[in-house]
């Protein structure tokens, strides 16, 4: 997976987003983890990104009871 910083584009937003989403290759991740120790901008973006992601995941809601049956029934009806 590409990391923008390694292409000499210092882009804390995209790098932090890819890092927090776990989408960097092992090599890119190791490189970025060394980098954030020296780069306040990337460090801050990673902290904010992690917190925001945790908050976003907390917004997940369970499927209401009965919705699966309703959808199943509508598919069966349209199949007839």
């Amino acid at each position, binding site marked *: 997976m590409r990391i*923008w910083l390694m292409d000499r584009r210092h882009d804390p*937003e*995209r790098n*932090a*987003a*890819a890092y*927090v*989403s776990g*989408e960097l290759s092992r090599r890119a991740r190791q490189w970025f983890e060394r980098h954030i120790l020296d780069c306040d901008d990337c460090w801050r*973006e990673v902290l*904010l*990104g992690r*917190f*925001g*992601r945790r*908050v*976003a*995941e*907390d*917004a*997940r*809601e*369970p*499927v*209401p009871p009965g*919705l*699966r049956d*309703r*959808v*199943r029934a*509508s*598919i*069966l009806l*349209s*199949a007839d």
Partner: protein
Amino acid sequence: MPLRTQHEEFLHATMGAMDLVYNLARRFTQRREDTEDLVQETYLAAYRAWCEHRRPRRVEPWIATICLNLGRSRYRRGVRRPIEVSIEDRDFRAPEVGDPERAAEAAMDRQALYEAMERLPEEQRVAIALVDLAGLSTAEAARAMATPRGTVLSRLHRGRRGLAALLWSEVRGVEE
């Protein structure tokens, strides 16, 4: 092994994605009934495509894209007409806890979270819904949103940062 009918095959392949579709649909609608309607519409549209032999390699991004397209048109329709929001619509289900005080706190947290999500620009909300709630990769989200992956990464990060800032100010507001 008995042959499955088309609809059985479809339901077997797609019902596991219901959680994803519901949470994505939730980002486009304010009322729970509308969310459920959007989920049903999504499944019916997906079933029609399935019957036309348009079968995806991976169900999740495929059905998420269908929901996204329907949700966007519904959302735009929704913006033009007044939205009635009843108290019941804002009644967030609290986790099963014996202590009513804790249950009330949990419901308030959920309310703050929901409102913070609502305040994000649509494209950031959609990026968060696809990646953080639906579990798509940013490459899959980029295909679903018909946008370059770099743009999705930016929207995703700005959305996460926005949520962090909004929730943080909420926490500080309570403490002060």
